């Protein structure tokens, strides 16, 4: 239906000229993407580079592999529209910094992880869900599912599902609660995020 509505001419032109190769957004492509990004991340996590350098390299991988802005907007939900430009900018900055520090504060524990891609399934228009099994020394293996979207033309991770719990849905409910309890002010959330970030920075120093 949707294709039909787009019009025959545009459709033909699209198919003939601009259509990406047929295999570009298949489950296989998503699985390969997760596999390669995971391997790149593992290489940094296992390396003996100094903390700041490791953190920078992790940040680089995340910015390239994750739709940070899209996830951040999803998490803020309806409050994104009511936020002013300054608030949005500050929120995006804090969101990305928290994402990176959440990993860098755990560099010690994350060393020597083993991960393997087990399967990939198409999840409607949302993208492809790639299942990985992550093993940490002395602990039961954990199933992590990565939702990979091709909406932007290239593969980007838009959600992480840990044992059936979606990170972005959980985080949205959390952030919503902070705003609600702060009297509907986004400033309340930004304050809480700033505080969390400084806690993470301290933990990073203590643990590495």
């Amino acid at each position, binding site marked *: 239906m949707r294709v039909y509505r787009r019009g025959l001419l545009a459709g033909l032109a699209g198919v003939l000229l601009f259509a990406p190769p047929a295999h570009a957004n298949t489950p296989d492509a998503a699985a390969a993407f997760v596999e390669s990004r995971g391997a790149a991340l593992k290489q940094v996590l296992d390396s003996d580079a100094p903390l700041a350098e490791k953190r920078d390299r992790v940040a680089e991988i995340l910015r390239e592999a994750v739709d940070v802005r899209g996830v951040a907007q999803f998490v803020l939900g309806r409050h994104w529209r009511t936020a002013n430009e300054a608030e949005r900018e500050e929120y995006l900055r804090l969101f990305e910094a928290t994402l990176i520090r959440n990993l860098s504060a755990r560099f010690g524990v994350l060393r020597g992880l083993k991960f393997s891609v087990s399967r990939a399934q198409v999840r409607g228009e949302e993208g492809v869900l790639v299942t990985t099994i992550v093993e940490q020394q002395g602990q*039961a293996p954990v199933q992590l599912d990565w939702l990979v979207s091709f909406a932007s033309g290239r593969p980007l991770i838009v959600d992480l599902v840990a044992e059936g*719990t*979606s990170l972005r849905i959980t*985080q949205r*409910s959390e*952030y919503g609660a902070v705003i609600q309890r702060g009297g509907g002010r986004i400033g309340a959330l930004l304050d*809480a*995020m700033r505080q969390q970030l400084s806690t993470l920075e301290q933990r990073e120093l203590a643990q590495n």
Partner: protein
Amino acid sequence: MLRPRLLAPVFGLALVLAGCATVPPETDPEARAEYFERNDPLEPLNRAVFAFNEAFDHLLFRPAAEAYRILIPRPVRTGIGNVLDNLLVPRTTVNQLLQGRPNEAANSAARFIINSTLGVFGIFDVASELGLEPRFEDFGQTLAVWAGTSNGGPYLVLPILGPSTLRDTFALPFDVALDPWTWIGQGDQVQGLRMGRRLTQAMDAREQFIEAGDALRAQSLDVYAALRSVYLQRRERDIRDEDRPQVRRFFDAR
């Protein structure tokens, strides 16, 4: 030490008397939609009970689970966990029948027979090796299947027991009644065994949740909201039977 714990429920009662969470006005449809999606009209009371549960967990439950981990070696814990899981299988079978899934119920019955005999009272999960993977069903899931929705009504935090919904709370006594072990045997020794099973079950569950629980508490901006979301998502997955069968290991694979 006792006073704050006693105060929590009193404080909670006062909150309920003071009124539930207020519904946003019609003029703010998005806030209203969020309110109904959250499905937590008793939030002030729930938060009070949650604070009490957190204190209880911090002072007693988590330390006990840690002691359980330290004192009992991993292979023994796995064996205990397998026995506990095996004891839950009859209840799962009954619920699978109630959900109109006779084939799955037959699988569970086979699992129970194999693990209780070949697996020596359930210590060894032989059935999983034979391809009969573990499943868990409770009456809350059965009610959801009957109702045709995973919406369990208002979210509730029960004292000590933790996250629940109206549906799952209503289902609790049925789960006790549907568990054959409730009706087998009598006398003080059987009562003692039942109590022992319940306590070990709690230790086993909490021990497995130590790392995840710590991470959640360290990461969350609002632990209450995060746990609420996690509970509702997990229940939805359980109801749809999308959960991954978990087989306990005696040793690390490496």
